[in-house]
């Protein structure tokens, strides 16, 4: 956190000064470790073992927060009797080895049937994938679950949890993670002693957890710990996702993601969502609890925002104009299509995949197959110049004169040259005022896409084709500023939504609760409704922090409805009283008959704690007064996920797709549902039990440095940042340096099945060899900011060129935090010799396209 979010880290330092204890769990000793009370190095890719062992410790020593667990989580809920926990092979019940997918119906709660849409991997598309939940809570048929509040029933979630994690012991932690019993005990003591009524523990993670082939389950592991310890919805608790970029949260909320519509509504799927009613049916059941039952109002309002008067009840509000997805169309799947030559055009909008995405060589080879490429950026990034100075030109794999890609480079406006909102990692929207005009041809994306839309609509104005109806009927009449820039506030107003008819016609909506499914309201992103409440740009509020309470609710605006902490009803006990005076945040005011407190209550504000819904009530009305998790279909925090995940209802340990270590828990080496792309451009290093893994004996992990920004587009072109970290380097322990003759300040060549890169060497005790399963495992650290090109102030080989592409099945995020490599002293060969050098490694390891891509690990001895 100190490395990549230094200014946010001030709050950790302040907490520390007030007595908080900071434990840093990371393969590397970083700037965070330097000021932490304890650093626990572990092997990259082994976290679920550590998290599972913590869960085991919490349960077996009875350290969980029983009242919270019983009241607020699904611990007491009974699960379908057909559910079978993971077996010796390493899979849960319902697994189909052929397709690598689960039928999740056996995972369901007892008495709650699996509904048709969930859990089936749609196989029609080229890159099949399962249900796309995005950020949405998973559907339940109804909220009438069976509970055993004694937590003794063997079918209850709590007992399933206990049994599942019983084998995750301190000994296993030492064996798999390389964390000794002493360190493990200290973590156990710290988190359990600092949880309960009086205390809370917070977990903070970032892409160190998401970028794994089991990434979602890492975070689920932390969810289980925090729910068991009663740390969700409470001040000083929570699980904080430190998102990496200015508005990466915003680009998920208002998604530029293939599987989502704004507000975590799913993109319609081919075959499943022929019309609106089938679409709604797959999102929620009217019998379930919580706010997803209003998805109809959110969707219709979105369609009204997009298609205006052309969207009517008669035409399903234009739903049929939306394109359908039928599989994984995420960026890496698109890359495979590019390599196959089926993608013609590509827009890069402030993104540098030639450097920043896994398997950089495949990225560049893919772009060389395009017909046309539009790059919009502040600087002349490597993705715009790969055709003349990319590494493949040097090796002869590509020749400039043979690359038919037509490239448009359009300069972009900087953050001071346009107005608009970023959504930060706390879900807070902050409005930026415009300071100056952009220079020359530089324009904002707002300007460019508006202009592009105007052009497209002009050219299609007379088109009789049905396929052009969506574009023709699109609302695209934004007021323009004098320089032709669309008014960003008008766009934000559209996002917020308006009353379209009735007494309030034309007025801004103040809450998504006001949205209607009858076309009388519009709104481009329901979770953002309220950002323009009362006709005021709430995101532009800047009442100085020092003039406000510590929650500072009048600075910017956080979704939903300016709630700064989600699920904050859980900060009070089931009776609505704060768990403790120290930790009071939101509580029930008996006199006022309202929820009140430091923050906007994340709960129906007048629903008393004692409220119990009539049986069969769905939606928000179905929430009981002690159901704090209002977006969950049963109102409870999920220790166990009966649906919504593709790779298991509980986190379980699989080795990374590339690992030097055999999975000690199961026959199955790595996540059997992981998404992989076996092809010549994306070869995989062998892992045990496959032969050849000794050729790539080291764990490699990639990361960022304080001094740089992602693929360098906003840092390597700046002298002030470039001089602070001018060269690509690798970090190795003194022990590995001795073993491989690496000299501090010298050069090393790091090799994988994909390619070899050269880096300057930093020999440092900050990287420690770990004793894993009786042998020493070395880890190599690689910051990934550099790329090969001619325009940046500093350049160098790219760490991402080393990485292959294996994805988490739920979210299609690549495993870039743990892979394997070899490392040798000296610089790499250049030109065609580099290809021969890599080929030699492949040959020694016996790598073919199928290596590392056999989904199910065969029984021992059969390889």
């Amino acid at each position, binding site marked *: 956190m100190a490395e990549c*979010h230094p*200014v946010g880290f001030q709050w950790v330092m302040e907490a520390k000064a007030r007595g908080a204890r900071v434990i840093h769990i990371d393969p590397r000793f970083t700037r965070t470790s330097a000021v932490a009370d304890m650093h626990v190095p572990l092997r990259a890719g082994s976290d679920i073992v550590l998290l599972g062992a913590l869960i085991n410790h919490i349960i077996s020593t009875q350290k969980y927060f029983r009242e919270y667990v019983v009241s607020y989580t699904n611990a007491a809920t009974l699960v379908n009797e057909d559910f079978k926990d993971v077996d010796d092979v390493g899979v849960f019940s319902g697994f189909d080895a052929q397709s690598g997918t689960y039928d999740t119906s056996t995972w369901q709660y007892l008495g709650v049937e699996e509904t048709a849409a969930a859990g089936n991997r749609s196989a029609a598309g080229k890159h099949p994938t399962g249900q796309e939940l995005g950020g949405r809570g998973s559907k339940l048929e109804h909220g009438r679950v069976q509970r055993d509040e004694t937590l003794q029933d063997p079918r209850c979630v709590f007992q399933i949890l206990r049994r599942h994690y019983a084998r995750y012991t301190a000994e296993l932690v030492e064996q798999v993670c390389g964390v000794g019993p002493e360190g493990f005990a200290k973590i156990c003591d710290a988190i359990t002693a600092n949880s309960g009524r009086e205390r809370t523990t917070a977990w903070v993670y970032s892409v160190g957890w998401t970028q794994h082939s089991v990434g979602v389950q890492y975070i689920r592991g932390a969810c289980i710990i925090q729910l068991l310890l009663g740390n969700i919805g409470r001040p000083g608790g929570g699980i904080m996702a430190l998102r*990496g*970029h200015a*508005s*990466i949260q*915003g*680009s998920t*909320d*208002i998604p*530029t993601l*293939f599987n989502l519509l*704004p507000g975590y509504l799913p993109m319609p799927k*081919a075959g499943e969502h*022929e019309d609106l009613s089938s679409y709604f049916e797959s999102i929620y059941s009217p019998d379930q609890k919580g706010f997803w039952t209003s998805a109809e109002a959110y969707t219709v309002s979105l369609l009204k925002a*997009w298609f205006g008067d052309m969207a009517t009840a008669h035409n399903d509000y234009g739903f*049929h104009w*939306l*394109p*359908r997805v039928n599989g994984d*169309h995420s*960026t890496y799947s698109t890359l495979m299509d590019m390599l196959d030559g089926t993608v*013609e055009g590509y827009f*890069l909008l402030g993104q*540098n995949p030639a450097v920043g995405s896994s398997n950089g060589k495949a990225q560049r080879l893919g772009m060389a197959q395009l*017909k*046309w490429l539009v790059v919009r950026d*502040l*600087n*002349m990034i490597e993705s715009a110049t790969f055709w003349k100075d990319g590494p493949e030109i040097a090796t002869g794999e590509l020749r400039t004169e043979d690359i038919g890609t*037509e*490239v*448009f480079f*359009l*300069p972009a406006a900087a*953050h*001071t040259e*346009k107005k*608009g909102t*970023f959504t930060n990692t706390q879900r*807070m929207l902050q409005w930026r005022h415009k300071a*100056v*005009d952009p*220079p020359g041809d530089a324009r*904002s*994306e*707002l300007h460019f896409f508006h202009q592009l839309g105007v*052009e*497209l609509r002009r050219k299609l104005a007379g088109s009789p084709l049905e396929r052009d109806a969506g574009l023709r009927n699109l609302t695209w009449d934004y007021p323009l500023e004098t320089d032709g820039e669309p008014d960003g506030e008008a766009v*934000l107003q*559209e996002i917020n939504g308006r009353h379209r008819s009735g007494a309030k016609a034309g007025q801004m909506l103040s809450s998504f609760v006001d949205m209607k499914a009858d076309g009388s309201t519009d709104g481009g992103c329901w979770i953002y409704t309220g950002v323009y409440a009362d006709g005021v740009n709430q995101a532009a509020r*800047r009442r100085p*922090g*020092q003039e406000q309470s510590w929650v500072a609710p009048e600075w910017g605006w956080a979704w939903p409805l300016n709630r700064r902490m989600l699920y904050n009803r859980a900060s009070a006990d089931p009776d609505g009283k704060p768990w403790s005076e120290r930790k009071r945040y939101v509580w029930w005011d008996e006199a006022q008959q309202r929820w009140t407190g430091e923050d906007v209550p994340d709960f129906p504000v007048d629903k008393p704690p004692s409220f119990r819904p009539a049986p069969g009530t769905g939606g928000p009305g179905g929430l009981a007064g002690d159901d704090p998790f209002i977006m969950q279909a049963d109102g409870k925090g999920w220790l166990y996920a009966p649906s919504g995940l593709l790779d298991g209802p509980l986190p379980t340990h699989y080795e990374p797709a590339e690992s030097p270590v055999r999975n000690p828990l199961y026959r199955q080496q790595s996540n059997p549902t992981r998404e992989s792309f076996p092809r010549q451009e994306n070869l995989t290093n062998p892992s045990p039990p496959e032969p050849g893994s000794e050729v790539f004996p080291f764990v490699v992990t990639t990361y960022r440095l304080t*001094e740089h920004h*992602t693929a360098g587009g906003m840092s390597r*072109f*700046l002298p*002030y*940042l470039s001089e602070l970290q001018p060269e690509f380097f690798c970090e190795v322990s003194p022990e590995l340096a001795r073993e491989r003759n690496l000299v501090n300040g010298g050069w090393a060549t790091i090799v994988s099945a994909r390619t070899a890169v050269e880096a300057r060497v930093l020999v440092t005790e900050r990287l420690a060899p770990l004793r894993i399963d009786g042998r020493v495992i070395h880890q190599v650290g690689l910051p990934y900011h550099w790329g090969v090109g001619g325009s940046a102030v500093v350049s160098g080989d790219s760490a991402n060129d080393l990485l292959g592409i294996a994805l988490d099945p739920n979210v299609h995020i690549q495993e870039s935090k743990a892979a394997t490599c070899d490392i040798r002293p000296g610089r790499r060969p250049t030109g065609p010799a580099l290809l021969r050098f890599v080929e030699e490694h492949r040959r020694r390891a016996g790598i073919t396209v199928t290596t590392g891509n056999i989904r199910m690990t065969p029984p021992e001895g059969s390889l």
Partner: protein
Amino acid sequence: MGARNRRRSWPVLGQLTGADRLGRGAAVESARTASLSPRTATADRVVQSVCPYCAVGCGQRVYVKNEKVVQIEGDPDSPISRGRLCPKGSASEQLVNNPNRVTSVRYRRPYATDWEDLPLDRAVDMISDRLLDTRARTWQEADKDGNKLRRTMGIASLGGATLDNEENYLIKKLFTAAGVVQVENQARI
């Protein structure tokens, strides 16, 4: 810098006649030093903004003089950042005023070995042509089972995560209406 209208004569005289006998301070001050003032004080306006780098969302104050950004620093009013910035945030003035920034459209023809110039309007016109052309050629109305697809798989987009919400909104809206589904973002990476 306060009362600094002292005479500027030969500093040696000042040494001899004033309190600064050793010529360390008051006697040796130059006219330029005496009139120093921070460029934040002489800016035409200050604009409140947000740092474009990470997701903490630190407040920034952008100082503008003669329609040029002359300084960007932390906004002490922000309850998030309390006026502080990391090295990247502190470098954001250089990000904006970077002489390495390319500010005109560059165009590379297929198989060409170098860039050429292209007017911005022409570029947008050409891009919209390319988009329509590819879209028409790669349009998928339905899958083999007759299920509605209404899309093109011939066009893709990958955005960075420094785009504004309003920008993402227009991107998603336009591409979705056009049948482009491969709309992706750093958020996936």
